[in-house]
């Protein structure tokens, strides 16, 4: 198992993750790494090849990949590292990360501060319990978007889209561009759930019919979708008998909501708000677990990417500060090491500030008996700072060496304190 240490680890390289990593680095964190499960940075932005990104931050109308590119370049300029094609399996409350990839196998990372930026996932069909068959040809809008824009394949030719989320509307237009027919978009609510601008630019402009207060009540087709049955719903969202309409199609896309992706957060003991599905956060985007921050759609689902980026900057800045504080604290401390013929010595770690205040005991036991006069040597970075004479040393008897506040100046700034037994 490879073991590493980073000041800040950002999980996910979408807009929130990229911004957080850049901000952490700019805040002074030494080493910052983004862990991304896909083979390149950018997250879902890479499959969002439509425009509409960056109007708030750049005052420009960019596509998703262009928007991501600007931050990817910036992250490289400031020296952010990336672990690609890598999946985080576990995150503990003590900020230890276990991740895997093909090249390195299992990687354990100790982290000063973590930024959760895993984004969100789409609600699947099962969550709606739509009756009917379970054939091929039922996709969430985001999966269809990946197939079309990244893989370069069409998931169908005649579509019905359930739900009027933004990805659904964007895909209605995208599929139309590719020569497919979008028969209808069906929304159970009396209003669209995505942005008005997407309704105008993606549905109205392409004459794609929108049916509000309707839902899908049946899916036909055993091997591949052959038709879906829609029906109007009453005020309790129950289908109204007699309003059924069978729509022949080969694909049903679902755009019925996004859920923050917090499986890892739960493992780390991060508390979630049942209303948003994301962590409870303070004004610095820190969760209830000290040193674990969160930003973007993992916290709550945003409307515009620009706000996600800003949330990432905020979380990253504070994560960076937190990590620096952590590093200072750990650097201040000395590791006490057992050398020649020392079985073990306590304490394992010594804070020089405590030594400045009062004398500190070092308690040790030797490994083998020496029935002769010996020195107990205390060394700091190879320099002898104290010598204690003993007439013999036996494993059955503990030996005590006392460091006094006068020794403070000799140990401050050092990393290790070595205790060893030498012949006199």
């Amino acid at each position, binding site marked *: 198992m490879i073991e590493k240490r980073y000041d800040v680890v950002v999980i996910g390289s979408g807009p929130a993750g990229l911004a957080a990593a850049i901000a952490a680095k700019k805040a002074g964190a030494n080493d910052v790494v983004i862990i991304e499960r896909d083979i390149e940075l950018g997250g879902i932005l890479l499959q969002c090849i439509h425009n509409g990104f960056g109007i708030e931050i750049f005052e420009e109308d960019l596509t998703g990949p262009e928007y991501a590119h600007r931050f990817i370049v910036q992250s490289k300029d400031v020296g952010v590292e990336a672990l690609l094609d890598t999946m985080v399996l576990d995150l503990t409350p003590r900020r230890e990360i276990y991740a895997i990839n093909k090249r390195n196998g299992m990687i354990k990372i100790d982290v000063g501060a973590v930024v959760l930026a895993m984004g969100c996932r789409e609600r699947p069909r099962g*969550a709606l319990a739509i*009756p009917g068959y379970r054939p091929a040809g039922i996709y969430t809008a985001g999966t269809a978007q990946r197939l079309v824009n990244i893989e370069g394949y069409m998931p169908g030719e005649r579509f019905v889209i359930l739900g009027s989320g933004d990805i659904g509307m964007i895909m209605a237009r995208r599929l139309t561009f590719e020569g497919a027919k979008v028969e209808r978009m069906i929304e159970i609510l009396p209003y669209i759930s995505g942005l008005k601008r997407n309704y105008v630019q993606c549905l109205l402009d392409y004459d794609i019919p929108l049916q509000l207060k309707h839902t899908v009540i049946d899916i036909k087709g055993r091997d591949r979708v052959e038709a879906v049955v829609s029906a109007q719903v009453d005020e309790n969202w129950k289908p109204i008998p007699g309003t059924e309409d069978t729509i022949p199609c080969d694909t049903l896309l679902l755009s019925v909501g996004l859920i923050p992706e917090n499986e890892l957060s*739960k493992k780390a003991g991060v508390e979630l708000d049942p209303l948003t599905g994301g962590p409870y956060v303070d004004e610095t985007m820190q969760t209830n677990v000290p040193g674990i921050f969160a930003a973007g759609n993992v916290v709550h689902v945003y409307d515009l990417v620009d706000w996600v980026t800003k949330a990432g900057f905020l979380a990253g800045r504070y994560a960076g500060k937190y990590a620096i504080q952590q590093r200072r604290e750990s650097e201040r401390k000395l590791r006490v090491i057992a050398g020649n013929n020392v079985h073990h010595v306590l304490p394992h770690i010594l804070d020089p500030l405590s030594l400045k205040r009062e004398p500190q005991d070092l308690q040790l036991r030797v490994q083998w008996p020496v029935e002769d006069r010996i020195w107990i040597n205390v060394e700091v970075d190879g320099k002898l700072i104290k010598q204690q004479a003993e007439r013999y040393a036996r494993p059955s008897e503990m030996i005590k060496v006392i460091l006094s506040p006068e020794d403070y100046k000799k140990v401050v700034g050092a990393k290790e304190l070595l205790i060893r037994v030498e012949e006199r």
Partner: protein
Amino acid sequence: MDEIKEKYKEVKGKYDVIIIGAGLVGSIIARWLSKYNLNILLIDKEPDVSTGTSKANTAIIHAGYDSPFGTLRGKLVVDGNRMFYQMCEELEVPYKMCGTYVVALTDEDIKTLEKLMENGRKKGVPGLEIISGEEMRHREPYINPDVKGALYAPTGGIGDPFMLTVAAAENAVMNGTKILLETKALDFVVEPFSLHKKKVSGVVTNRGTFLADVTIASAGLYCDELMEKLGIKYDFYVRARKGEYYVFDKAKKLQVKTVLFPCPTPVTKGILVTTTIHDNMILGPTAKEIKDKEDTSVTPMGLEELYEGAKRLVPKLELTDVIRTFAGLRAGGFLHDFIIEAPPKYWGFINLAGIESPGMASSAAIAEYVVNLVQEQGLELRKKNNWNPIRKSRPDFSKLSLEEQGRLIEKNPLYGRIVCRCEIVTEGEIVAEIHAPIPARTYDAIKRRTWLGTGRCQGSFDTPRVIEILSRELGILPTDVIKESKGSNFLTRLTKEVPERGLND
């Protein structure tokens, strides 16, 4: 039509035994027969084993207290349960021997429990015990607080019907059995035999005719259609009985740990609340007889019935964490008993009909019973001395320790890439299944073996990646990758390619 039949009549092989149907029962029969010096062929009409009743059921290992004393089913389930766990050990298939409970909510129900216990004890079901309501509440805290008592059957549990079928078929193949998928039995080869008997001497399939000394039909829902070809009509009918199910997210807080049955009615054991071998809570099944043997659609009425039924056992149940619904069909026999026999008018032919619940728990005993019937049909059975009962399982990444996971990736880097994030399934596991003795060549075949795509995102993340892997490993176009059956393709064409129907169709 005759011309087509002629075409299929070309003899493609000669075997000692042909088994029609590679479901759980057919595959386990194949494994049992592979102990002997026989040349065996196992065929199935679908591209994978375990695609019919075996793929969509409650997966309960029944203890056997409820099937009536004196019936074949009643006997085989008790014997089968006794053999089941050892079979799982040999085939390295997971199981949970967590015990099952029949829950009594009224004093009347307690009487039913006593009857069930008596029936079970008469048949030799070990360890049966009626526990108090208080004890039941202690064991399953979310149970209906009105519970009066429960019949506890310690030998009951939860199995993995897909993997058991795959493993049994694999073990049969390891021991010399030949398997042909996408091979549908269309008709039988029948010859004169004696004054009162005809001989079934083979099977006509879409891939030619295969001859055999003994033909075994383990065709599940389709057993009656095959019997019609031989003019066998039973004085009962076999109908498809639909069972619908709800599946819950693993992360659900309200979780049942064992198997909870309501008190049974004469028709059905009722709607259970239980978990899968992978710890997803499930509710089901409904029991509705239908005509269409392929109608696995989920219905609004069925779902409503499930919820209402399950709430009687676990009143706090809410549907917010449902991640999937499904329906399966079982061969519901009118007589409520297994038919496993050599029909008197034929020689060299064995038929299995009406193998519904508790088919999985009974399976090993069914196989042993069939072995005897095969012997009675004139085949001399001699045990092979090199029969290997052990089928090694392939690594389940999510069940390994961090160190073991690290070592596995070192050996094969494909285990370092997670394809299904919810269930933690790696590319290494998928590729291993694609190239296993019974190859997983479809999305659903991989899903049944690895549990990929069964979590809370229901395949949204893994589908594009699995299509890519199947295409690469099988050397086929991504557009030819299928979900389960012929025609269930995921993709239609490349983008920028003009659709065949034209743009303005």
